């Protein structure tokens, strides 16, 4: 909304906005949707924040205790493990997904026989429900019956059970995520590539630009919007990872979200820190999104063009 930027003039602003009947109508028109957003979005978030500042338990609302839950949370080694796992997972998996996804997008953007089939085939892993994919991969990682453990063992790379080691589990989770969501990134980037008109490349070629120049001077800048969207989506998704960790690791692999789940759903005593962690995830995810939009200049709407 354009009016937000003019918002710091106090009463004169208020008069300008609401003194004008037409503008007033506009506000009245968006009011119902605003109310609904307040009820369904802001109220639960606010309630979560309030809960995290009290010593509430699963069965009763408690009294205000300030930031005690947060200090307890930051001292909890389980939380710190979840945080470090989540950060490593997010950075590594998103980076891999981006580079591989970009490669795939560039490859299938070219015209070749059977292109439609390849594009559809690429999407298959993404179409799997995460839980099913995680169960399937867990079986493959399983020692004595799993193919991956068998191959790794035969090649002499890993002889210990993969599922017993938290480090190997985390690497496994990253690989599964890359396997599963690279197609999504590729698809978003492919859509971006297809909006770049062919004439631009033709003109560049006429001017004598080589492949590298064309890629870095034309493709990448024109693809920036699509890249930011893809990377932001993936970063936020990876940051909130829950199902993949929970099922693949069978409770062994901690992320921020599994910490929240354990706190508020399994434990009876960790409800406070669990809630604090939920707020922590929300705030940090929001900051990540803000970083993308403000610092990296991601466009959130077409109007600003």
């Amino acid at each position: 909304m354009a009016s937000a930027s003019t918002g710091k003039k106090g009463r004169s602003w208020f008069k300008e906005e609401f003194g004008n009947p037409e503008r007033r109508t506009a506000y009245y028109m968006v009011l119902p949707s605003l109310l609904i957003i307040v009820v369904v979005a802001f109220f639960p978030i606010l309630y979560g924040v309030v809960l995290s500042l009290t010593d509430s338990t699963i069965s009763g609302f408690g009294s205000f205790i300030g930031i005690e839950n947060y200090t307890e949370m930051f001292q909890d080694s389980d939380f710190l493990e979840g945080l470090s796992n989540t950060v490593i997972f997010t950075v590594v998996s998103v980076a891999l997904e981006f580079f591989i996804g970009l490669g795939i997008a560039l490859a299938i953007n070219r015209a070749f026989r059977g292109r439609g089939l390849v594009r559809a085939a690429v999407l298959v892993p993404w179409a799997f429900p995460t839980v099913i994919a995680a169960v399937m991969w867990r079986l493959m990682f399983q020692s004595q019956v799993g193919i991956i453990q068998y191959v790794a063992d035969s090649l002499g790379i890993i002889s210990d059970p993969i599922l017993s080691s938290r480090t190997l589990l985390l690497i496994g989770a990253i690989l599964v995520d890359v396997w599963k969501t690279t197609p999504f990134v590729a698809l978003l980037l492919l859509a971006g590539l297809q909006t770049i008109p062919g004439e631009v490349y033709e003109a560049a070629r006429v001017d004598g630009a080589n492949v590298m120049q064309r890629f870095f001077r034309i493709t990448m800048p024109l693809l920036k919007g699509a890249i930011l969207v893809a990377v932001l989506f993936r970063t936020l998704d990876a940051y909130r990872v829950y199902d993949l960790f929970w099922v693949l690791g069978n409770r062994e692999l901690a992320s921020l979200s599994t910490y929240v789940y354990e706190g508020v759903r399994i434990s009876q005593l960790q409800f406070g820190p669990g809630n604090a962690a939920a707020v922590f995830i929300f705030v940090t995810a929001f900051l990540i999104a803000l970083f993308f939009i403000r610092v990296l200049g991601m466009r959130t709407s077409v109007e600003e063009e």
Partner: protein
Amino acid sequence: MTERAEGSGVPAGRKLNRRDFLKMGGAGLAGAALLGTAGCGGGSGGTGQIIFTMGPDTDGSIAKLIKKFNEQNKGKLEAVHRQMPSSTTQYYDKIRTEFQAGTSDVSVIGTDVIWPKQFAPQNWTMDLSDRFPASEQQKFIAVTTQVAEYEGGIYSVPWCSCPDAGLLYYRKDLLDDSGISAPPETWDELKEMAVQVSEDAGIQNGFVFQGANYEGGVCNALEYIWTHGGDVLDENDNVVIDSPEATAGLATYNSMLTSGAAPEAVANWTETESLANFYNGDSVFIRYWPSAYGGLGDTTQTKLKPDQVGIAPIPVDKPGNPTFSCLGGWEMSIYANTDIEEDAWKFIAFMTSEESIKERVIIGGYDPSRKALYEDKEIAEATPVVKLAKDVLLKNVKSRPVTEYYGDTSLEMAEQFNSALKGDISPEKAVKTLQKSLSQIMEESK
């Protein structure tokens, strides 16, 4: 003021007010609708139906008993089985959410043995002392009623597959081939036999069990601690896990992996993986619940026949020491806010009667909670495991350290036990860590 505002502004303003009114009304309605749906999510049933929650009825025995109950009380009472998830954790999660909301229409709850002590302090279940007096309680295996006691009251009635208990299954045929006549009595014997027999027979694993970081792993590790003379809580609920006995127990637990008796993979195995391995003929020994016996001879599940498999108590530290098996199983409670308390009790009395338990035990191959049924010939014939494991089930079953905050206790134990099994931490470190964290949890419940 501009010309425009003077000209058309006033009528426009009036119109706007009406529109505004409509809009506000619309928003109000939307809000009310939202609140409304939230509010009437759980109206109480009130049809006089006795709603009974329990996991899936895999063998049809629950349906059969309920049908019988409904026929006996035709026109007066009607019971229905509301199916809950087969995963105990998910069932717990679901029922706990309903209780928290306080709107559940459930009357009778099928409860895992670790729930009564967690539900009672929240006032979610009803004290049954008047209806289920000591004279009645005596007819059940002691440990199955002890888990339901809270502050002088009793909150559930033991039912079927209760006591569920850890047992050591062994391949009689393979032990014979290696010239071993009796199953192992001590953990050391078990290790030796596991290594020797699996080598002789040329099969993959000696001994398999459930070592993963979950509730089943807690049960497995506790059996090692108990059979070494250690414990988690004493009779006054003081944490006593930091003891040489418990440390020795966890050291033996870890030695199952280091000695090669068990594959390293058991550290992430649950019931599914371990039983599949044993049923497939890939292991000599398995620690499992009584239900594994029922599948023997069923060619769709396993190639093993009942006469190839023997059952022994959980091994001990030194010969002659008492053995202990971890208690599992199902009981029945009444939801505290139900308005058909009397009917609910009638249903429980029917379902936990000697006759009903016997019927269900024979259909499903569970073990009975009533002591008298261990002498029953028909049961002994239909469910051999009841006869084979009789001594263990009647005498050597021990409850997990269940208290109000067992959920937290279990999370801590599962993680430490699993790390100790894998050798990531030493047994000493595990018991020290647990002594501290469990003491904190017990503080909360005092």
